[in-house]
């Protein structure tokens, strides 16, 4: 029977169809028509957009709409813990009681330790602007601390690799323009799994004749579709790119006029400091063939070689150009050296370099996988360098591409008037060091933590240590959630929040497209759920800060649009958005990042040479191996890729998802398995000296020998014991901290694996 069919008349009865948005961090941000009957979702269908071809939805969105909203584990009313934390005993309380108590305790903490002792943290579970910015807003309102999510998200090195070079943390062509590219080189990205809503553009490109190459240690779904698959050792992408650059250099494939004009390649470097040689006025100096002159005064500086610079005191400095300095590093990356570092055939490096440099437009598409290692910022710096040396940055349908779209512009440029109402600011602490900060209570005491839109119990590192070492120092731990997650299990209060379909009104900007959409309420809130904004508004009022929290949902959305820093959003009015459901953000088309060749770096050019990291020894691009994987006790690299069946931890509990992906499997190459006496399908133990977990093994030729693959998103309870996130560690990285903060190196994890001892193996 068709869902919603009336058994007597045979017709499907629908009360109304509401256009709204599904928006977890898959970044698809799909417009959805919600079919509603008697206040319940009957089904959803892809909604249309102002332009054709953007209708889409996926199995996750469907499963979430149909199975998460009324899931038996859905939290329907506020819960307060009874007994010890994590004991599983809860009592139902009213919102009045919950919020009254929470406000009181937050106030007491503020009185005793200062306002900043109350903290908030959010992640990426909901792209709705109002929802996702509310924690930051409340922290600012109350002078509390926001734990940033930048580093903890685990893909910050994409931005850190970009920023010093380009002056921008992200860039991406419009994916709908993929068919204009002739050569698409995909590094560590798996669009078939993680950009599947845009994958059709890649297929369009292939049908138009583009060649697609995927670089990924494992044979991903995208690799299965590509023309060529290159499989380097995990964490060695920078070496591979350096190898490509070396070949391009050898074979005169570098676009030298471009490099001269648009990068700091010609700048002379002071060998004593490793910094750019500057004149008295602070201007960078170049060699014009005859003399050392200011860069701005030289139309055609020399790119290669060294200049003998006489100083006033008579010393003569042997100054390489920045290009030369970088060259002395990449020269080491001969094909045979790269073959050894990356465990790849040497000919592959050569072919990649020639194909990339020799095709135009050559679209470099970079994923977050390769940067999930301690030195991962070097990886994305390498991608930028490669694209720049090929003259591809600022070129249509080429460039170096990570992410861009309405969401990045909308949320990352959030109006201060909204996020810091009344001009009040709280504090920021790096969320990536949450564990350390809370357990040591440094740099200052933090006594409460409130998280929202964050599957902390599954997605954060070492949650077991958080429970042991950090949680005892918190007087209050509040979790806003829809489901009893691993984090909610340990909370003092769990507050029920609405799903996308129950949210009254919110603005949702496209993760990988250029539309702004309106989230409109399809069904009434389940139980006593409230939206994030309303929850914090309640808190603000109780703490005497209600002045800026009195707008209703509609007024708030209007305020956000009218006050947005980006004129493209100010140009959108709520009425049009309500009528159409989606509005295209007006940016020039085709969208060519850096098309104006303006870079917001100190020199105004692409800074391939980064003098600010000279002390750290990273002025020039280099490759550094992952921290782990060399210890003979733990020689295998453990990688936890994203996949189509779940966006992080939001979907792994849904029955339809589990029908297709019943359990987490540890994938390993048959040779590695045979070496350890592991047969296909047996339970195994994976460990290092930080933790262990138990999981079923699956032998898979698609996994490069030397690594293990476990799918992310499964909860602790889905493993027989432990969780793979227990096995990682976070070491501060000075360069990353200097730029933003340390990135959580999710996959810089060395482990060993073995069959479970027989007596432990029984279920």
């Amino acid at each position, binding site marked *: 029977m068709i869902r919603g069919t009336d058994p007597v008349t045979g017709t499907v009865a629908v009360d109304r169809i509401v256009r709204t948005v599904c928006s977890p961090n898959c970044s698809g941000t799909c417009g959805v028509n919600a079919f509603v009957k008697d206040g319940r979702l009957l089904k959803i269908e892809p909604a249309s957009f102002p332009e054709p071809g953007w209708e889409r*939805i996926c199995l996750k969105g*469907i499963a979430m709409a*149909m199975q998460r909203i009324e899931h038996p584990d859905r939290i329907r009313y506020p819960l307060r813990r009874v007994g010890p934390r994590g004991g599983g005993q809860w009592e139902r309380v009213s919102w009045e009681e919950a919020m009254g108590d929470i406000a009181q305790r937050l106030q007491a903490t503020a009185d005793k330790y200062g306002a900043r002792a109350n903290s908030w943290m959010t992640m990426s579970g909901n792209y709705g602007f109002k929802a996702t910015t509310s924690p930051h807003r409340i922290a600012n309102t109350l002078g509390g601390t926001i734990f940033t999510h930048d580093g903890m998200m685990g893909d910050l090195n994409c931005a850190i690799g970009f920023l010093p070079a380009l002056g921008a943390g992200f860039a991406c062509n419009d994916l709908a323009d993929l068919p204009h590219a002739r050569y698409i080189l995909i590094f560590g990205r798996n669009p078939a799994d993680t950009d599947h809503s845009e994958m*059709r553009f890649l297929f369009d490109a292939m049908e138009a004749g583009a060649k697609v190459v995927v670089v990924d240690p494992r*044979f991903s779904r995208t690799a299965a579709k590509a023309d060529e698959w290159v499989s380097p050792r995990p964490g060695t992408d920078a070496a591979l790119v350096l190898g490509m650059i070396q070949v391009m250099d050898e074979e005169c494939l570098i676009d030298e006029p471009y490099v001269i004009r648009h990068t700091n390649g010609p700048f002379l470097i002071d060998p004593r400091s490793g910094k750019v040689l500057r004149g008295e006025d602070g201007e960078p100096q170049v060699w014009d063939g005859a003399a050392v002159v200011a860069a701005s005064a030289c139309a055609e500086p020399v790119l290669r070689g060294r200049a003998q610079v006489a100083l006033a005191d008579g010393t003569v400095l042997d100054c390489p150009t920045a290009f030369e300095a970088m060259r002395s590093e990449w020269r080491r990356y001969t094909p045979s050296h790269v073959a050894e570092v990356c465990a790849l055939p040497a000919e592959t490096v050569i072919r990649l370099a020639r194909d990339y440099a020799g095709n135009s437009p050559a679209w470099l598409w970079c994923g977050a996988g390769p940067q999930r290692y301690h030195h991962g910022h070097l990886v994305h710096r390498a991608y930028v360098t490669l694209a720049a040396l090929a003259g591809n940055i600022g070129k249509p349908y080429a460039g170096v591409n990570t992410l861009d779209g309405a969401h990045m512009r909308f949320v990352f440029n959030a109006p201060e008037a909204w996020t810091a109402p009344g001009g009040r600011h709280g504090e920021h602490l790096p969320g990536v060091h949450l564990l350390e900060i809370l357990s040591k209570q440094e740099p200052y005491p933090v006594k409460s933590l409130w998280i929202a839109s964050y599957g902390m119990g599954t997605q954060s590192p070492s949650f077991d240590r958080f429970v042991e070492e950090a949680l005892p120092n918190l007087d209050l731990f509040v979790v806003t959630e829809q489901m009893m997650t691993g984090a909610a299990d340990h909370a003092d209060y769990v507050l029920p929040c609405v799903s996308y379909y129950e949210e009254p009104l919110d603005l949702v900007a496209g993760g990988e497209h250029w539309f702004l959409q309106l989230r409109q309420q399809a069904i009434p809130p389940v139980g006593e759920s409230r939206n994030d904004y309303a929850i914090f508004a309640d808190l603000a009022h109780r703490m005497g800060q209600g002045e800026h929290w009195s707008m209703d949902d509609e007024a708030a959305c209007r305020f956000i649009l009218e006050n947005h820093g980006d004129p493209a959003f100010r140009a959108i009015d709520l009425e049009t958005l309500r009528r159409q459901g989606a509005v295209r953000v007006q940016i020039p088309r085709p969208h060519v990042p850096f098309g104006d060749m303006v870079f917001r770096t100190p020199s105004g050019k692409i800074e391939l040479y980064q003098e600010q990291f000279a002390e750290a020894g990273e002025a020039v691009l280099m490759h550094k191996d992952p921290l782990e994987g060399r210890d003979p006790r733990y020689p295998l690299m453990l990688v936890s890729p994203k996949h189509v069946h779940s966006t992080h931890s939001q979907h792994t509990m849904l029955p339809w998802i589990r029908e297709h992906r019943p359990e987490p499997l540890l994938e390993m190459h048959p040779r590695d398995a045979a070496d350890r006496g592991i047969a296909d399908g047996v339970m195994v133990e994976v460990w290092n000296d930080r933790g262990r977990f138990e999981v079923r093994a699956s032998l898979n030729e698609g996994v490069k020998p030397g690594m293990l693959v476990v799918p992310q998103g499964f909860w602790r309870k889905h493993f027989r014991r432990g969780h793979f996130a227990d096995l990682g560690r976070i070491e501060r990285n000075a360069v990353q901290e200097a730029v933003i903060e340390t990135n959580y190196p999710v996959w810089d994890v060395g482990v060993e694996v073995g069959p479970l001892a027989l007596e432990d193996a029984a279920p």
Partner: protein
Amino acid sequence: MTRMAFVIDLKRCIGCDTCAVGCKMENDVPASRHRLKVLDPLNEPALERPTGAYPELKQHWLPTMCHHCDDAPCVAVCPTRALWKRDEDGIVVLDKDRCIGCRRCEEACPYDALSFDAVTGIADKCSFCDHRLAEGKEPMCQAVCPTRAIHSGDIDDPESAVSRLVAERDTYRLGESSGAGPQIHYLKP
């Protein structure tokens, strides 16, 4: 005469299971039953394993549901005419009111297209979303496929998308030797 057929582009199919789940939603298919399954070459879709040996590997996915065969074996064996191929559009329809749960269709079908209710034994299978066709909409699998891998239409109309794809691209069908005349045409991966 109209003859409804599917064309599925295996170059584009990424095995995401959205078609299978969309079908479950649209047609209220009970838990652990499927009208549409996405297979892989090793017949172990949940294990996601390619064929070959590292690094010479291949992997593709193959959605399959009722093939609405020209000479459907299920129609031939059904004792109660619960299964019948419609003259007007070639869709093999299942009238659940007539189904007695004997499973002869299951034994006859080369494509494992039928599933059965755990309590009543009544059959269930892809209906070509004829309820959606009646409203001018496409079958749900086609509507939700993110890569636009699924096409449907009248294979007897030379101008239809399905006819053009079959004419222009390399296609194959499953189990041609069965003689059933299946109407899912696969574009080779």
